[in-house]
């Protein structure tokens, strides 16, 4: 197939119309009356909300801003600014008390303290994968970094138990947000609109029954670079467009690239497209001015993440093959 660097360029207006039609159709078919969406202050939720407003109108779109203790304060500021720009209602719910009640922070801190016993309230933490997969081959091994708030940083490689303990605790943040979104949705007979893009969906960069727990995913067919193109076209506020993509889950700032993707989005999306479409390694390397080794490395990473996250994209496994409507 013909593969080139401009292959992900889209007709933004045509695509926006198509997605708006999709949202309208889904709301009607589910017999709902609107959409509720979590506004994170990032580009994915801002764009998805823009589509909801375009499809359903500003009266039928509600934004929830759901900060917690570790959230960057600008996330709330940008989310509210975006909501104001769209003219929609936006409610703020601090989910920290719910997380404290569940023990999210305590469980996470206990896991960290098994590695760094001194870790406490004034500390910040983040997890990262080795940087730049294309420059240097390495496995996806997480490093935990802590900082005492006075610039004294320490880091250590995470073993399986530590990693799973920290992830299990922090994933409750996204699951708590899902709970709030469905509370609003059911109360108002709205559906919950998801915000996962294709770059995330294919590689499993979402939380099962967290941000993955939604009724529709209007941007799940769009690569992150296309999300940015459409967001600019639809007038998402510049502060969000210029902000580096981040999960905003850890007290120490970490970008999506540092935490998970390991390749800058422009390059990542093209390579992901090439992998998905079965573009031969030599063709992808030639078009992108990369070595075949670099492309092979990226493809191996995609295949591994796709395989590991496959269960996250499926309905729960059961012996029930299909549900048929009864005869009339």
């Amino acid at each position, binding site marked *: 197939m013909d593969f080139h660097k401009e292959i992900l360029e889209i007709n933004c207006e045509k695509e926006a119309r198509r997605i708006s039609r999709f949202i309208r159709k889904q709301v009607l078919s589910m017999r709902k009356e609107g959409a509720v969406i979590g506004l994170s202050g990032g580009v994915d939720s801002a764009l998805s909300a823009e589509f909801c407003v375009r499809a359903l109108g500003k009266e039928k779109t509600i934004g929830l801003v759901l900060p917690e203790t570790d959230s960057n304060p600008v996330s709330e500021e940008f989310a509210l600014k975006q909501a104001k720009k769209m003219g929609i209602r936006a409610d703020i719910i601090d989910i920290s008390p719910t997380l404290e009640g569940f023990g999210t922070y305590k469980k996470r801190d206990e896991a960290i303290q098994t590695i760094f016993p001194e870790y406490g309230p004034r500390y910040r933490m983040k997890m990262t994968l*080795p940087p730049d997969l294309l420059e*240097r*081959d*390495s*496995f*996806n*091994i997480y*490093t935990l970094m802590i900082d005492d708030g006075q610039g004294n940083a320490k880091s250590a*490689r*995470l*073993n*399986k138990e530590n*990693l799973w303990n920290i992830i299990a605790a922090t994933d409750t943040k996204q699951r708590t947000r899902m709970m709030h979104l469905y509370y609003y949705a059911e109360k108002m007979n709205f559906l919950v609109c998801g915000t996962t893009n294709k770059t995330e969906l294919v590689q499993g960069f979402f939380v099962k029954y967290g941000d993955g727990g939604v009724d529709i995913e209007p941007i799940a067919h769009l690569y992150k670079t296309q999300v940015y193109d459409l967001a600019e076209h639809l007038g998402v506020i510049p502060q969000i467009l210029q902000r580096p993509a981040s999960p905003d889950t850890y007290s120490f700032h970490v970008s999506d690239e540092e935490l998970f993707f390991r390749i800058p989005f422009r390059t990542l999306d093209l390579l992901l497209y090439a992998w998905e479409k079965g573009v031969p390694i030599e063709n992808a390397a030639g078009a992108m001015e990369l070595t075949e080794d670099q492309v092979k490395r990226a493809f*191996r990473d995609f*295949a*591994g993440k796709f*395989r*590991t996250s496959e269960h996250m994209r499926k309905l729960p496994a059961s012996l029930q093959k299909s549900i048929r409507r009864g005869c009339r």
Partner: protein
Amino acid sequence: MTDKLEIVPERDVKEVLRRYITENFLSRAGLEGLDDTDSLMEKGIIDSTGVLELLGFIEEEFTIKVGDVEVIPDNLDSLQKLTSFIQRKLAHAGH
């Protein structure tokens, strides 16, 4: 858990590793056999969590410390590469 080896010739290192990988990863990947040069990642035998398990095992079993910069496919992605890597580490440690 395999008994710790006092002397670890290449053949023994490889067999310890083969047994560990077979018992812990092969059936999960739906595979029955493992060639010395099979890529553990490309064949879906280990994922990133599997690498962590493997690291924990070889550090304990061979009493070696694997540095972050050594956690690369060139050292860990096949039975042959793992064996050579561990042999080098053991030789360096004076076993």
